[in-house]
């Protein structure tokens, strides 16, 4: 009966210090749109940047579960500050995948000294359409010359190093681009120009800007990996970063939930407790999907083409739903500049609007999932899965095996073990021990079988029909449900020590909360909530309101304030 250690998060939360003070930084920054330097200084002092380099290059740890928890802890105070700091992880991801030792050592030096590194993938006219990217690197004078505009880039002005995806062949194919590592200080003056900060609706403090190259000469040694492998490196890097982005959604949704559930006049609405419970259930589902996703980086590395697309879509979607429902409950106090937390709600809502867009938008991720439908549908029906990898992905709190970046694959050969292992987990003892949960698990499994049949009817196409996107969204929700069951099954012992775990409270509420949106996506009628569902939600609301009042954890794997 060991609780999951919250030591790293607690240490980081303590390092960030007084919440009232950091909120003043957040509010001021949102108004002045200045870079969150004070947050960055505290995060650097804590050593968060040391997690952005792998241990073999001197970094702190490659445990993605721990990093996810750390980011979440920052994100529940300020999403923009988290994205600004965490961007070095994306910027350097291509390096740890493809760099030669001397390149990796140089970047590790920069990262460990706290230098920000940016990643330049997007272009003004191409967005996520990487294959049609038009910035060129042409062989010249023993090196390459860069031409064109990369925009927008997070940390586009402040980063000392940039990983840049550029075209090195005319045809637009999977091998027409290469990745470069650019040391900004080494660029010849006059051959490049900084583009100004982009003014955005949320995340206003970010250094979101761009860079324009006009004949910028870089050495041949700047090439990362082999020429022509740029798209592959970018897609593999995105598998890691898309999975980790979900930390932002967990933080924002927890922040929103606490603002509403903490004692005060905000719950004067009669149905307030019910809304709080439903939102807590959705957040628990998002947390389960995200934790299993982050641990899949280690345990199910070869399946990340599926897992990352699922997690990057479902976590922001569930958090958007939480924030939307809570906003409706709050009324004008949600958007008030001096409402709950002196305007904290409206800020987190604006900031979170961006999460479903960056590092590959939800439609982009769903399209990549749809491309893998034939195998996913077959395997979902058969239920074959990687049992060992899945067990590792569900073993929350247990240090995972080192990440083997060589095992990253552009298309999962084994489908998605998390979802394919649903029948087994539904039949596991901890699930069967609770008849209500057992019934819900069987219901979810039956839904996935209907889903796999619908998915198998989608014909592969470069431009899939809308119906396929809805099936992808349904697949994501089923993944979240399956993740809940795996975590319950792995840690059902916590029911003796944690209020949210008693009588499978959180997992039962989460499965109920997922069933409505799932039915809507599958075009199935939705019955009114059953007495059992109402009873579960009633108990959960009591547990959440108590936890919020005590500043305790409001999610099954959450931490106290």
């Amino acid at each position, binding site marked *: 009966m060991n609780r999951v250690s919250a030591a790293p998060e607690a240490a980081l939360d303590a390092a960030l210090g007084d919440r009232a003070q950091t909120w003043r930084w957040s509010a001021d920054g949102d108004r002045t749109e200045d870079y969150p330097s004070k947050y960055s200084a505290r995060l650097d002092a804590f050593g968060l940047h040391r997690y952005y380099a792998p241990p073999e290059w001197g970094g702190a740890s490659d445990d993605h579960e721990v990093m996810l928890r750390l980011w979440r802890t920052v994100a529940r105070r300020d999403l923009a500050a988290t994205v600004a700091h965490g961007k070095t992880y994306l910027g350097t991801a291509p390096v740890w995948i493809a760099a030669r030792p001397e390149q990796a050592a140089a970047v590790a030096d920069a990262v460990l000294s706290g230098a920000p590194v940016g990643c330049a993938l997007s272009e003004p006219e191409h967005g996520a359409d990487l294959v049609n990217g038009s910035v060129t690197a042409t062989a010249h004078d023993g090196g390459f010359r860069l031409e064109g505009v990369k925009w927008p880039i997070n940390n586009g002005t402040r980063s000392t190093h940039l990983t840049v995806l550029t075209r090195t062949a005319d045809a637009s194919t999977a091998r027409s681009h290469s990745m470069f590592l650019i040391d900004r200080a080494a660029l010849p003056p006059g051959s490049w120009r900084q583009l100004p900060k982009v003014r*955005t609706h949320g995340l206003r403090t970010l250094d979101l800007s761009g860079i324009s190259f006009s004949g910028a000469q870089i050495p041949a040694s700047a090439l990362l990996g082999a020429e022509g492998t740029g798209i592959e490196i970018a897609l593999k890097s995105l598998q890691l970063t898309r999975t980790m982005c979900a930390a932002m959604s967990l933080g924002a949704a927890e922040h929103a939930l606490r603002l509403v559930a903490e004692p005060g006049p905000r719950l004067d609405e009669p149905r307030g407790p019910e809304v709080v419970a439903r939102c807590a259930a959705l957040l628990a589902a998002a947390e389960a999907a995200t934790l299993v996703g982050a641990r899949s980086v280690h345990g199910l590395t070869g399946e990340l083409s599926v897992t990352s697309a699922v997690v990057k879509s479902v976590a922001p979607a569930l958090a958007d739903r939480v924030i939307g429902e809570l906003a409706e409950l709050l009324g004008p106090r949600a958007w008030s500049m001096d409402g709950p937390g002196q305007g904290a709600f409206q800020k987190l809502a604006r900031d979170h609007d961006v999460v479903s867009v960056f590092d590959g938008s*939800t439609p982009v991720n769903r399209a990549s999932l749809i491309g893998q439908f034939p195998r996913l549908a077959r395997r979902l029906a058969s239920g074959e899965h990687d049992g060992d990898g899945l067990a590792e992905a569900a073993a929350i709190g247990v240090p995972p095996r080192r990440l083997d970046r060589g095992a990253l694959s552009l298309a999962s050969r084994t489908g998605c073990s998390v979802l394919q292992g649903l029948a087994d987990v539904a039949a596991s003892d901890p699930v069967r021990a609770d008849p209500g949960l057992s019934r819900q698990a069987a219901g979810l499994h039956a839904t996935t079988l209907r889903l796999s049949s619908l998915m198998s009817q989608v014909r592969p196409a470069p431009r899939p029909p*809308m119906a396929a996107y809805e099936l992808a969204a349904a697949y994501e929700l089923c993944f979240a449900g399956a993740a809940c069951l795996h975590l319950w099954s792995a840690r059902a012992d916590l029911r003796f020590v944690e209020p949210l775990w008693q009588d499978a409270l959180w997992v039962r509420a989460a499965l109920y909360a997922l069933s409505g949106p799932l*039915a809507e996506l599958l075009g199935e009628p939705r019955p009114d909530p059953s007495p059992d569902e109402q009873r579960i939600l009633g108990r959960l609301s009591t547990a959440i309101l108590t936890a919020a009042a005590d500043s305790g954890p409001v999610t099954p794997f959450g931490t106290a304030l």
Partner: protein
Amino acid sequence: MTADKLDEIFGDPWDDANPVGYAALLEADERGELPAAAGRLLADYDLGAEFVPAEHGGRFVDMDELTAILRTVWRRDPRLGIAYGHSGSRDGGTGRHLSGLRGLEISESEPALHTVFLPSLLVGPLDTALRTGLANSFDRRLYGATVADIPFVRATIARAYADLLAIDVLAPKAPGAERLAYRMVVEALSSIREVLGARALLRSGPTAIFQKMARDVAAVISVRPRQDPRARPQIRELLRPELTARLAEPELLAVRDRLARRLGDAPVLTSAERDDVDRQLFDTAAARYHDRRLFATTARRIPG
């Protein structure tokens, strides 16, 4: 029609040089100020006279005409609809500064928002948002074609258009109608946000008006008295027959299907029928956009 006249006075909203165009309105919004030029224009036009019956010297004809005029104001800037689009004096007591409707102090007794017709007025900002989404889809190229060639984008726009039509033909006083309308507005805006991608979040450039409309609409809805979520509306009570008569057959089917799915009823359309209806509605929405016509059932010509 007077709405035509007001539109003509307002001029092309997409013209950056227009003092009452979106660029100028956004600048005022950034400063947290009400747009002065637009305010003067509406004062000269004497918008208040639209609420006064002819026998008392005003220009009020009927609710539909008044709605058309007010939507014209709300399409441009919801703040104008609140500051000028009401009959009495705007003394709402102590209010709040919200993240939307910047430059106004909003209280829950705000006179312009004290109407059950509010969902109908939100067709105005939703029209602007949808128009922004279509403009971006036709102007932007991705994956070797325009964004508007992507089936996902076409279906998403078709469904947002169907939602706009549904709100347009909704009977405002039917039980549960108002809350349903707000959910549809918010979800339609989310759909358009998906189509716009990162551009939905920019505060400059041709799509910047989207984030302002989304903020303003959220603020407006939040001020309305809370609706009972347990009221489960019946589709047959929700639609106004005199307005649904204006819908073409695929539009009516799409509206009924959208409402049924939202209410948790069995869908009206099969998957194949839905594909077909989505295609037809996208084509209609695109034609309205290219012909510079309103998306609502009146399909009135507008400047721009």
